[in-house]
């Protein structure tokens, strides 16, 4: 199979890769780049565990071809914060008990990140809407919403 060259900005760093035409973004991140913070829960866009940010918007990385990232700005969970400097959302998720098994957490955080980037003072309803594409089976969502509220200083 032929390959496609793709150049994009990943977590503020330029990346240049050769990918197969059918390679999905999730495969490229997890297999080619070993960025395994992006999780595979269903592969069909139904769970949101693989959520990443493309050009400031959330996307299910299982539903985007790697080739489509050419020229885009991409943020994954690995670009949100670090041990030295957590994003306010990450700290709030820790403090508010928003993390249980943790498998939905990266995707959940990135959905919340996009919300707060566009709307620094969301209502509870807007928070729930923003994470409605991210399934969580452990928490029942309340503590996740609490954490997002806390991160925006509510």
């Amino acid at each position, binding site marked *: 199979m032929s390959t496609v060259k793709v150049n994009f900005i990943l977590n503020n760093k330029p990346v240049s890769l050769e990918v197969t035409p059918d390679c999905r973004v999730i495969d490229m991140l997890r297999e080619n780049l070993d960025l395994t913070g992006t999780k595979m829960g269903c*592969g*069909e866009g*139904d769970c949101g565990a693989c959520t990443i940010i493309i050009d400031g918007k959330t*996307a*299910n990385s*299982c539903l985007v*071809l790697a*080739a489509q990232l050419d020229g885009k700005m991409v943020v994954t969970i690995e670009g949100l914060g670090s041990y030295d400097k957590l994003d306010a959302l990450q700290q709030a998720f820790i403090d508010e008990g928003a993390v249980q098994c943790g498998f939905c957490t990266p995707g959940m955080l990135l*959905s919340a990140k996009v919300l707060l980037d566009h709307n620094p003072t969301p209502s509870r309803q807007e928070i729930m809407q923003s994470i409605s594409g991210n399934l969580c089976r452990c928490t029942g969502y309340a503590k996740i919403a609490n954490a997002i509220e806390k991160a925006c200083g509510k």
Partner: protein
Amino acid sequence: MSYRYIKPQTTEQVIGVMQQYSEHHLLAGGTDLLVRMKLGRIVSGTFIDISDLKELQEFTVDNGIITIGAAVTHAQISSSSYMKEFAPALAAASASVGSPQIRNRGTIGGNSGNASPAGDTIPALMTYAAVVTIAGPQGARTIPINEFFTGPGRTVLKSDEFILSFSFSAQKAGQGSAFEKLGKRKALAISIVNAASFIAVDLDQTVTQARIALGSVAATPLRITAAENIIIGRKLTDSVIAKAAKTAADSVNPIDDVRSEADYRKKIVAALTQRTLKNSCSFLGF
């Protein structure tokens, strides 16, 4: 078993590529296509990436005519304050699709192109009597949206044609429209039934135009003219609305599937039709 990825820069190039590679897959949002790939329903072919094609990103209003390019996303439509005011049924339908992630990628053209009987934006487009502009080797042609679908997953599109845009009149004073969806949950839901209505009244509130469309009740979304005819020429009293709603329910023959049952679908067609009509009235000041 091999794939190819091509990203044309113009619509002409798209058609050229479509003609060159008979086994091709138009890729806009990818929210249906990549699911099909994952499920093994497609295993090879040429992806033609049209997601960044400028001509398909058009989102204009000219002389009261709204034109929406095929690659405009559900998120763009549902978050547009213009659309919420002048095409509220479509704005609501777009807002009801999938999840934020799906709406950020999924496009209005993809929703029609996939021709799912449950496609949420389709009944809305039908009630606005939208015209589909189709690009092909001989140039563009247009077709009314209610003639566009030929079956589940099937449309009038030929193998070297694709959707350029949808056009319809912006809602004016004396007109109202609304969309309702019933899914198994409030997000990430495929419609059990969806419904859209559009009405126009004259100065004494008599209905001059009515369009009612339903999804997930037949092989394709469809207009319910029998119900429309009950409304046209009358005032929208509760009893007229109820009668139209009942007629709508009587006019459809839905099926059982994994989401719901035929009998239930028939029952809620009435409720949803009634709600779209009542909500349409809210634009009329009564």
